[in-house]
């Protein structure tokens, strides 16, 4: 039990399980979407619709866009909180961004896209700081604060657009740059995916290598003990909400450009719940103090690949929600009973 290999498996058993599930779903999809007219079995798999360039590009873009805000949610969940406002915030940011480009709202000046992005990011920092302040300093439960956000931001966006769609086709400024930046490709991969990888590395550094991450994990477990160790818990919690809001804003930009027009009443609906599902499936505990970047990434990816499978194989798309629900429940149950540890324990060893 003490070999480096078993230690490795013990430490990453959740991630290992998820990777297994991911591979299983991927192979399932490859097999059933194989090209039956190809020469030979292997060739038929390689030519499957799942492995087609278009599907992989699409999938990686989705993983990127969903992954970005799921990472933010993961940090908030590790702090012992929750952010229900993510989806609404994304609708709101998308709306405001397009108003910046078109200048078609009385209160919002039309500005070029580069300063617009800057203003939006600054604004998301302020929103996150407000959430963090209300939650950590004023001590209103995170659920309540962000529930207000869930209702408020979407309502605001709907009010501003008079509950219609807003696009950027009549933008006052040149938008070629932003289109190329957000919907284009870098090294042959969608920009969203590349951005996601970069953000993964940053969040990995923050959570697993930096002092901030250690503090976050500590206060997620036991806020009082963290405070008694001299940690400024209010600042750390607020920082987690700020990161979550900023990542929601970044993701909102990708989604806005991807959908080309924002319908505030449905844009980003339930995204916060997808993020929570991905994080929980990836091993984050809603009680806080537990979670890894690899887990969150894998959890989000599993959910999106499942979705992709349902689309490709032509299963009833309504049923995909049921599958998602079962996978999450199964994942949490496996974790609850520590099935992986039971499997990895040698049979002759008894419990100490």
């Amino acid at each position: 039990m003490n070999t480096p290999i078993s230690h490795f498996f013990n430490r990453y058993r959740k991630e290992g399980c998820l990777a297994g599930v991911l591979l299983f779903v991927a192979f399932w999809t490859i097999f059933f979407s194989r090209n039956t007219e190809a020469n030979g079995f292997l060739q038929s798999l390689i030519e499957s619709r799942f492995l087609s360039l278009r599907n992989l590009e699409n999938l990686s873009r989705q993983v990127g866009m969903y992954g970005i805000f799921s990472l933010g949610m993961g940090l908030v969940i590790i702090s012992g909180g929750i952010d229900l406002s993510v989806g609404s915030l994304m609708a709101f940011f998308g709306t405001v961004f397009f108003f910046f480009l078109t200048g078609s709202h009385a209160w919002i000046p039309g500005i070029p896209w580069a300063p617009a992005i800057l203003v939006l990011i600054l604004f998301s920092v302020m929103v996150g700081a407000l959430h963090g302040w209300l939650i950590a300093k004023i001590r209103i439960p995170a659920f309540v604060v962000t529930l207000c956000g869930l209702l408020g931001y979407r309502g605001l966006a709907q009010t501003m657009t008079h509950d219609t769609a807003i696009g950027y086709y009549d933008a006052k400024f040149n938008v070629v740059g932003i289109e190329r930046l957000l919907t284009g490709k870098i090294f042959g991969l969608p920009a969203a995916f590349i951005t996601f990888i970069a953000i993964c590395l940053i969040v990995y550094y923050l959570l697993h290598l930096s002092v901030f991450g250690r503090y976050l994990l500590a206060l997620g477990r036991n806020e009082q003990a963290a405070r008694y160790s001299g940690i400024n818990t209010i600042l750390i919690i607020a920082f987690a909400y700020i990161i979550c809001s900023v990542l929601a804003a970044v993701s909102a930009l990708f989604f806005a450009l991807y959908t080309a027009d924002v319908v505030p009443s449905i844009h980003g609906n339930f995204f916060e719940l997808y993020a929570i599902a991905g994080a929980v499936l990836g091993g984050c505990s809603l009680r806080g103090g537990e979670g890894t970047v690899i887990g969150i990434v894998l959890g989000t990816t599993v959910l999106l690949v499942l979705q992709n499978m349902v689309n490709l194989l032509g299963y009833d798309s309504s049923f995909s929600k049921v599958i998602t629900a079962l996978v999450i429940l199964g994942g949490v149950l496996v974790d609850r009973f520590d099935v992986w540890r039971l499997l990895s324990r040698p049979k002759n060893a008894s419990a100490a």
Partner: protein
Amino acid sequence: MTKKPTSPNLFVKHPNFTLQPYQLPPLLQLSQVSKSFGVVQALSKVDFEISTGEIVGLIGENGAGKSTLMKILGGVHPPSTGQIRFNKAPVTIQEPKAAEQLGISFVHQELNLLDNIDIAGNIFLAREPRRFGCIDQRVLQKMALPILEELGLHLDPRTSVSRLTNGQQQLVEIAKALSMDAKLLILDEPTSSLSIQETDTLLNLVKRMKGQGMAIIFISHRLSEVEKIADRVFGLRDGENAGELNAKEISRDRMISMMIGRDLSEVYPECNPVNTENVFSVENFSTLRWPKGNASFSIRAGEILGMAGLVGAGRSELAQALFGVDSSPSGTMSVNGQTLTRGKVKESIANGVFLAPEDRKASGLILEMTIRENMTLNSLSQFSRHSRIDFKSERTRTDEWLREFGVKAPTVELPVSSLSGGNQQKVVLSKWMTLAPKVMIFDEPTRGIDMGARQEIYQAIVRLAETGCAILMISSDMEELLGMSHRIAVMSEGTLSGILDRDAFSEKAIMTLAVNQSTTTSSS
């Protein structure tokens, strides 16, 4: 008839036979009871007995098997081998309900009351008298009253438990046990959260219950209490019988040597001399709980100032306010002449004022994190560059601390929750003591910790004092205060009512100061 020849000397007086005070057959008799969990032998061939109207003190270090033995009696774990007889009949206690039916009741160290329910509701929890499917409040209160009267708890049974002091809550626990018609009452560290006065009340009550024919097993780390009330003391060590002392033999030294298995010349290390310079001065300090309170004192370099008081006197609150985790309405404090802002943890830590808090599990440690992560949580800046943690140096340093503080763990990568209470406390101490404290506040440093680990902690505290650190040691353990302190400050209702010098030390003097404030304030 065939049995007769097998016991020929039944009526022949045995040469070693002496008349025992208790001729009654024992109420409870355990013979050769063993219990193992996997490869761990928690109890091995333990014999134990208790008669009605007897108080037996059960002592032993943590891990000696006391709690396993109690869990066997409580039906939580059945014994692996051995026999239990209750009222002469062999019994198997397979589940907690069975223990309850036999008349075995427990009062646990941690209070298990629901503080959103009133006293009567707690006493008869899950056994409430019902009427038309609803709880019959009137009958419930009528049932609770005589029990409360018997315990001398003159309170309305409708009082919410959250409004009671720790001592009163402990009495409600006992009321719960009494209401089940207990024949055998097991008190597990019943006084660990009680003040001196409340402890006395409880001990008197236990004596009275004994007079009414109840058998009582009294488990405590506080040997002076065991000495005071036990008729017989029974020791456990490493899961085996460590011996028995009868009423005449009970003494502190004998109990300690029975528990530790060797003689203990000195529990408390010798006090070191004190410098004359003041390190820590506190003036007119009050706390959120006692905003009208007033604490003024100063501690010199190398001095250990003990702090006594009843539970709820505001000692822990004062400690938390001085450390800065709580804000406080008024007062000034200074370290080496430099004034500190109230309610700023960062500033306290920067000036070397540290607190090892009362509740290890809630405020001292993050149980799920490793020993390494706990040890460096307050000093991560030392192990990081540009906010990136240097895992290698963190690992090496905490490995050194592990050895230096004698934490019994194979590696620093284990979660703190896997350690015993004593070792957990050593992790808390190492966390702060390695930062060269100028003022170190210990709040109940040895609560629930066995004698062996206690001594190590005392030695660590004295070593720290020798470096010139000013030490404030809050404790409810009278012996510890008297044995360790240079001076003892006594708190009462948020106010420091007096400081005793070493030649004025006595339990009585402390008690007088601890209660006098309430009489003066009520008369004024």
